[in-house]
């Protein structure tokens, strides 16, 4: 029978990867990361997402960008030609400990997410004077 494949168990990848509960495509947004003197600026292309559907989290040293995109549909019209597909966006980066967690700025404009990760000013090495007794 042709459909015997459906009864086969699917082997897991090793190590097992986490799966999403929603069966929707996920895309990796293209990013530019620019190092400025006192900050790191990240631009990510996430067309279709706005400030309500974008989620930025920083957990330990992992910065994750997530964007949820609703599929485009127009009542009374059917899709006739498609070159791009719509799906969610997801991407993670490891960032250095220098990032100031309390001053991360995130702005979404015209489908581009801009993140400003400021660095904690370096505390100057404290010099300890040694005296003789």
């Amino acid at each position, binding site marked *: 029978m042709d459909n015997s494949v459906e009864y086969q168990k699917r082997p897991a990848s090793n190590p097992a990867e986490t799966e999403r509960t929603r069966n929707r495509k996920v895309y990796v947004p*293209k*990013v*530019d*990361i*620019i*190092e*400025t*003197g006192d900050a*790191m600026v990240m*631009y990510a*292309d*996430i*067309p*279709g*997402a*706005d400030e309500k559907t974008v989620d930025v989290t920083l957990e330990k040293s992992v910065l994750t960008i997530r964007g949820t995109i609703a599929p*485009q549909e*127009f009542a*009374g*019209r*059917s*899709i*006739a*030609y*498609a*070159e*791009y597909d719509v799906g969610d966006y997801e991407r993670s980066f490891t960032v250095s400990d220098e990032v100031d967690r309390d001053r991360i700025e995130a702005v979404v*404009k*015209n*489908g*581009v997410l801009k993140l400003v990760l400021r660095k904690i000013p370096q505390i100057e090495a404290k010099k300890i004077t040694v005296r003789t007794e």
Partner: protein
Amino acid sequence: MFGPGIWRLGGMMDSVRELQRMQGEMNRVFSGIGRSLSQEAPSVNAWVGEADVIVAAELPGVDPGKVDISVVGDTLTISGSREAEKLKEGESYHRQERDFGRFSRTIQLPFHVEAGKVEAKYSRGILKITLPRAEADKPRKIAVSAE
């Protein structure tokens, strides 16, 4: 002469797109021109209804004032440019993946459209163009009379 027609559908769609991508890649490799968006950019989706066609394109980070849309008969051209972030003194890239430069795209629509009534909206990085079907191009219903 024109870009891909709107009628390429079904199972062909994926392979056509893949071929276009490969062609674009080849052109980019052999033309020697550095960073500019390919001729096939932006990718478009089209929805066809009884009275109009909606064309959508993903164009994140584009100034809507710098996008030109022109319609002649049954062809639609979207062109414009996307500016790169300007680096100041002392700034440097860790990664640069996003595409910049000029783009231009011409597609053939399934019918002639009313050029004066075309509407374009840009929001969240997606350009949506609604093109109503030309009155003269709408199908006429012909009554059959018995003799």
